[in-house]
C-alpha cells in the first residue's frame, strides 16, 4: 500500500503550484528601486592582446552611468578556485589569476572586457557598441594535445606552459599496473572522447547587487545553487567584504545542473558596482551570452586499457586522460577530472590495480567545471565502453563478464581510495534482466531487421560517490572548503515548523521532501512544515546543493536537529504529565506515558515551550528551536544497472531509442515519485550527451554550436517512455536516513548504455566498428558505416 504521507510517500510537489502558475520569485523577478543595468562587452576573439579600450564615446551616450574595465579591478582578488590539486611530482597545480574583467589579454570568446552600467539595458547595449577596442589577435589554442606541444602559444603568459597539472592516481601503483598490463592474458584498449557540453539550465543566470549606505551592508541576489559558498568566496577572496556585511540570496532558481555552483565574475561585478554607484545594479544573462559565459562541461580525451587474466578476471585498469580546463580555473574545475573521476575507476568491479593519469590543460575556451555527474560520468563511460569491447573481443556475454567481476562483499575498499559501504550489484542486474525482457530481444531485433533497421542492446553498470561530503576526506584531497550541511528546525508555538536548511533547491523538490522526513519523525502532517532555503540572512551556514548531497547530508542535518527537538519536547511532555522522561513515548504527534492513558498532543507541548507557565525552567530553556551540522564519515554510493535498446537506420544513420530500463540502488527512498522524476531528467541529459549535444569550437576558438539552432537539446520526442525502478535498495550504512542520493544517476548511467547499444546494433549489421564518439549523430553514424565498409 502506498503511504499517504511521510517517508516513502509520493507526496505531490508543493512548489509546483507556484512554478507552474507563474508565481515563483526568480532572481530576474527582483527589481529594486533605482536599479541600473549592466551589459558586459565580451570578447569576440578567442585570444588577443588588449592594446587599448577607448570608452570616451560610449561614456557620452544617453543613459550611461559608468563604464568599468579591468583597470578598475586590479586591486580586487582573483575569482578563486576552491580546490587545489597536487600533481604527480608533489607540486601544486598552476593557478592563474582570473580577473573580474579582462586584464591585458582576452582568453576566450565571451571573456568580459568592459561593463557598461546605464539607466536601461538597451542603453547599456548601445553604449557597448560605441566602445573602441584595440585588440591584437593572437593564435588561439583549442586542441588540448596541441596546447601541450613545445612552442604552443600560452593561454597565460606568466605560466611556463598550458599544463595546469599532471596528476597520477594512485601514483604508487603505477609500476604494478604497468607490470600487470604487460603480463596480462588479454588487454583491451579504447580511445574515446567525452564530449564537451553546454549546461543550459532553463533559467539563465541573473545577478542583482545592492548596497545600503546607511548600514554598509551588501546584498547580492543571484541564481546560485549555494549562496553561502558565494558569500564566502566572493566576500573573503574577491571583494574583501566580511560575511556579516554581505547577504547572498538565491531565491527560486530554475535549474543548475552544476553550472550555478560557481562564483562568477558577474556576481562580483554587480556587488561591487552597487557600492561604487550607490545604486542597485542588475545583470540578466541572455541565452546567447550563457553559451559563452556559463562554465561548460566534460571535455575529456581518454585512452583506457583493461587487462584480464586467462579466466577473464579484470587484473588492471590504466587510463590517460586529457581534461580541458578552458581559459581559467572555475570554482571546482580541478576536482572533476581528478577526485570525482579517478576515485570511481574501479566501478562495480574488484579490479585490484588501477592507475589514472590526468593532464589538465588550459585552452582558449570557456572554463569547464562540474555538470550533473561531474567526473563520474566520464569514469563510467570509459570503463563500461572498454568492458563492452573486451567482451566482444573475447567472445563473452557482456553481462556475464560484468557479473564475474562484480564486487560482492561490503564494505569494499577499492584500490582508488574510496570504500563502498553497501550495495548489491547482482541483485540490480537480476532486476534489470527480468524487467528489460532480454529474452524478448531476439524477436524485437528480428522485427526491426524486417523494417530495414539494425537493433542493438546496450548494458551498463555504474557506481557513484555521492552525498558529497566528508570534510576530513575532501580536505585531504585538496578541497578548500568543508562539505558538511546544516539545518535549523524552528517549532512555532502552535506546533507548525519552519526548517531552515543550508541545502538549496533549484527544481529538486526539497520543499516537499524535507517536510516528509520531519513529519514522519514527529507523526504530524507534512503541511505543518515549511522549508526555507537560499538566503544567508536566515539559514545556517550550509554548502548548498550538488553531488546528490541534499537528502544524504542536508537531510541528515535536519534529522539530527529534529532529534534534538524531540528530545526537548519529550522533557516538556514529561513535565506536563508529571511523569518520568524515560516513560514518554511519541507516536502520531501524541506524547504519552507508557502503560497509562495519559497523553499530551504535540501542539500542547509546543505551546508550553513558548508560554512556559507550567514549565521545568530550572532544567531547560523555553522555546523549541535547534540547529544541527552534519558531516558524515563517508560518501554514499548509489549504483545502478541500465539497459537500452536502439534502432539504427543504416540509410540515414539516425539512432532511435526504443526502450530504456533502469535498476537503481539509491538506498532508502523518501519520495518515489520525485526520485522517478530525477531519474527521468538524468536519463534525458545523458541521452542528450550521447546522441545530440555537441559543444564544438572551430580552430580559431569560435563556438560553432552557440545557439539552439546548432546545439541540439533533447526534446520529449527524442526519448522513449522510461521504465525505472529503485525499489528495495541497500540502505546507506552511515547516515540516519539510509539514503544515497539520486540526482545524478540517470546522467551518469545513460550515456554509456546508449553508445553500447549503438555499437551492438552496428555490429549486428556486420559493421565491424568498436566505437563511435558522442554525440552519436546521424551524420557520424553514417560516416562511420561508410568508413567501416
Amino acid at each position, binding site marked *: 500500500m502506498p503511504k499517504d504521507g511521510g517517508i516513502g510517500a509520493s507526496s505531490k510537489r508543493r512548489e509546483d503550484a507556484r512554478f507552474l502558475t507563474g508565481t515563483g520569485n526568480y532572481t530576474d523577478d527582483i527589481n529594486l528601486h533605482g536599479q541600473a543595468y549592466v551589459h558586459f562587452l565580451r570578447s569576440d576573439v578567442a585570444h588577443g592582446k588588449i592594446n587599448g579600450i577607448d570608452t570616451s564615446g560610449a561614456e557620452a551616450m544617453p543613459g550611461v552611468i559608468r563604464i568599468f574595465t579591468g583597470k578598475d579591478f586590479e586591486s580586487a582578488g582573483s575569482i578563486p578556485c576552491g580546490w587545489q590539486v597536487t600533481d604527480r611530482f608533489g607540486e601544486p597545480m598552476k593557478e592563474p589569476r582570473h580577473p573580474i574583467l579582462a586584464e591585458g589579454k582576452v582568453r576566450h570568446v565571451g571573456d568580459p572586457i568592459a561593463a557598461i552600467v546605464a539607466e536601461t539595458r538597451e542603453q547599456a547595449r548601445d553604449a557597448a557598441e560605441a566602445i573602441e577596442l584595440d585588440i591584437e589577435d593572437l593564435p588561439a589554442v583549442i586542441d588540448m594535445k596541441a596546447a601541450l606541444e613545445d612552442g604552443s602559444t600560452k593561454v597565460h603568459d606568466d605560466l611556463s606552459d598550458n599544463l595546469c597539472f599532471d596528476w597520477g592516481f594512485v601514483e604508487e601503483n603505477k609500476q604494478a599496473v604497468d607490470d600487470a598490463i604487460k603480463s596480462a592474458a588479454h588487454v583491451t584498449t579504447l580511445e574515446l572522447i567525452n564530449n564537451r557540453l553546454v549546461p543550459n539550465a532553463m533559467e539563465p543566470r541573473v545577478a542583482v547587487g545592492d548596497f545600503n549606505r546607511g548600514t554598509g551592508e551588501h546584498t547580492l541576489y543571484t541564481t546560485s545553487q549555494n549562496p553561502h559558498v558565494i558569500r564566502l568566496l566572493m566576500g573573503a577572496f574577491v571583494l574583501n567584504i566580511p560575511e556579516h556585511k554581505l547577504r547572498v540570496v538565491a531565491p527560486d532558481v530554475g535549474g543548475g545542473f552544476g553550472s550555478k555552483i560557481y562564483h562568477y565574475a558577474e556576481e562580483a561585478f554587480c556587488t561591487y558596482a552597487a557600492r561604487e554607484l550607490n545604486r542597485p545594479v542588475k545583470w540578466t544573462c541572455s541565452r546567447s551570452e550563457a553559451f559563452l559565459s556559463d562554465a561548460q562541461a566534460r571535455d575529456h580525451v581518454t585512452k583506457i586499457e583493461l587487462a584480464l587474466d586467462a579466466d577473464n578476471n579484470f587484473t588492471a585498469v590504466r587510463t590517460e586522460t586529457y581534461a580541458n580546463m578552458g581559459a581559467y580555473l572555475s570554482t571546482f574545475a580541478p576536482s572533476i577530472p581528478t577526485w570525482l573521476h579517478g576515485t570511481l575507476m574501479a566501478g562495480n568491479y574488484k579490479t585490484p590495480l588501477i592507475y589514472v593519469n590526468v593532464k589538465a590543460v588550459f585552452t582558449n575556451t570557456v572554463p569547464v567545471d562540474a555538470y550533473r555527474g561531474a567526473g563520474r560520468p566520464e569514469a563510467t563511460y570509459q570503463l563500461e565502453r572498454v568492458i563492452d569491447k573486451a567482451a566482444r573481443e573475447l567472445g563473452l556475454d557482456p553481462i556475464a563478464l560484468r557479473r564475474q567481476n562484480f564486487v560482492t562483499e561490503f564494505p569494499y575498499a577499492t584500490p582508488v581510495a574510496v570504500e563502498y559501504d553497501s550495495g548489491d550489484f547482482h541483485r540490480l542486474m537480476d532486476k534489470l534482466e527480468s524487467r528489460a525482457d532480454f529474452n524478448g530481444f531476439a524477436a524485437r531485433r528480428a522485427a526491426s531487421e524486417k523494417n530495414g533497421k539494425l537493433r542493438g542492446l546496450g548494458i551498463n553498470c555504474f557506481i557513484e560517490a555521492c552525498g558529497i561530503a566528508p570534510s576530513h576526506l575532501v580536505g585531504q584531497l585538496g578541497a578548500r572548503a568543508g562539505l558538511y550541511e546544516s539545518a535549523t528546525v524552528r517549532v512555532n508555538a502552535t506546533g507548525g515548523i519552519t526548517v531552515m536548511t543550508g541545502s538549496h533547491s533549484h527544481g529538486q523538490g526539497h520543499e516537499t521532501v524535507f517536510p516528509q522526513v520531519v513529519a514522519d519523525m514527529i507523526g504530524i502532517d507534512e503541511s505543518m512544515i515549511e522549508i526555507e532555503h537560499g538566503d544567508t540572512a536566515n539559514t545556517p551556514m550550509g554548502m548548498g546543493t550538488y553531488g546528490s548531497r541534499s537528502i544524504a547530508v542536508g537531510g541528515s542535518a535536519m534529522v539530527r536537529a529534529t532529534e534534538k527537538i524531540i528530545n526537548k519536547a519529550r522533557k516538556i511532555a514529561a513535565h506536563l504529565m508529571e511523569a518520568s522522561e524515560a516513560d514518554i513515548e511519541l507516536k502520531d504527534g501524541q506524547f504519552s506515558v507508557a502503560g497509562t492513558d495519559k497523553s499530551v498532543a504535540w501542539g500542547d507541548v509546543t505551546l508550553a515551550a513558548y508560554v512556559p507557565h507550567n514549565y521545568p525552567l530550572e532544567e531547560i530553556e523555553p522555546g523549541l528551536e535547534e540547529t544541527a551540522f552534519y558531516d558524515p564519515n563517508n560518501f554514499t554510493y548509489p549504483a545502478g544497472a541500465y539497459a537500452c535498446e536502439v534502432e539504427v537506420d543504416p540509410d540515414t544513420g539516425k539512432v532511435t531509442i526504443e526502450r530504456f530500463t533502469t535498476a537503481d540502488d539509491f538506498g532508502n527512498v523518501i519520495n518515489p515519485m520525485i526520485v522517478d522524476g530525477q531519474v527521468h531528467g538524468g536519463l534525458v541529459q545523458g541521452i542528450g550527451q550521447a546522441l545530440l549535444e*555537441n559543444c564544438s569550437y572551430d580552430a580559431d576558438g569560435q563556438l*560553432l554550436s552557440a545557439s539552439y539552432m*546548432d546545439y541540439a537539446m533533447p526534446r520529449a520526442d527524442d526519448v522513449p517512455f522510461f521504465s525505472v525502478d529503485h525499489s528495495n535498495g541497500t540502505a546507506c550504512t552511515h547516515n540516519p536516513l539510509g539514503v544515497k542520493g539520486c540526482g545524478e544517476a540517470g546522467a551518469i548511467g545513460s550515456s554509456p548504455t546508449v553508445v553500447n547499444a549503438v555499437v551492438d546494433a552496428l555490429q549486428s549489421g556486420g559493421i565491424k566498428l568498436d566505437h563511435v564518439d558522442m554525440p552519436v549523430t546521424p551524420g557520424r553514424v553514417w*560516416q562511420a558505416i561508410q568508413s567501416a565498409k
Partner: protein
Amino acid sequence: MYAFDIERPTTLADAVKLLAASDENQALGGGQTLIPTLKQRLAMPEVLVSLTAIDEIKGISEDDEGRLCIGAATTHAEVAAGAGKYPALAALAGNIGDPAVRNRGTIGGSLANNDPSACYPAAALGSGAIIVTNTREIAADDYFEGMFATVLDEGEIITEVKFPVPEKAAYMKFEQPASRFALVGAFVAKYADGVRVAVTGASEEGVFRWSEAEAALGSNFSPDAIERLSLSGDGMISDLHGSGEYRAHLVGVMTKRAVAAAG
C-alpha cells in the same frame, strides 16, 4: 533590438507605399526569422511594415485552372488545416517548426526569406508554383537565386502563391537535430506532364531541382527508378551536422522515401 517603428497597414497599396518610402523600411511577415535577427541586433530597420493585417493577401482558394491559391500572409497552421486539396502541401506546412512557429510564420515570409533549409521553397519549386507579387507573376523555376536570395526587388511584396495540384506528391524531411529545419528535404510531385523533384537543405545554392531523378521517375514512378542515381557531395552544405557527402546521400534516401510515400 535597436529601436524601430512599426506600421500595420490593412491594404496592400498602403504596404507598398510604406515600403517605398525609405530603403531602411522592411517588410515583416510572421517574423520567425526577422524577429530573432532583430534581437541579435543584426538588422536595423527604421520602420517595420507588418503584412499580417492585410486581409486581401490571406486565405486559401482555388482558381479556374484548379490551382490552389494561398495568400502570402496565410500562416503555416492555416495551410496545414486548409490545404486539404493538396495533402502533401498541407502535411509539409503542418510539420514546419513547432506550433508557435506555425501560428505566426507565413508562406510569403518563408519564400521571401528563402532560407536554404526551409521547407516551403521545396514545395514551391517541386510544384512548379507561381509566385504572385504586387507587380508580377514569377514562375518558381525563375524565382530562387541561391541562399537567402530571390528575384524579388526592393519593396516588392509577395501576395499569393498558386500551386498546380499534382496527381500525387509527398515531402520527406530529414531534420537537423538542433534546429529541426531540413538537413535534407525532398519534395516529389507527379503531374500529368512529368515529375518534379525539389530538394532543400542540401545545396550551398539553396533549393534545387534534381533533374536526373525527375527524368527517371517520369518513366517509372517508383523508388527503384532512382536506386542507382547519386549526387556528388561537391557544392553541398558541409557543417557540424553532416558532410556534403552525407547530405548528397540523404538526398537519394529522402527522394526515394518521398516517392514511396506518394504511392
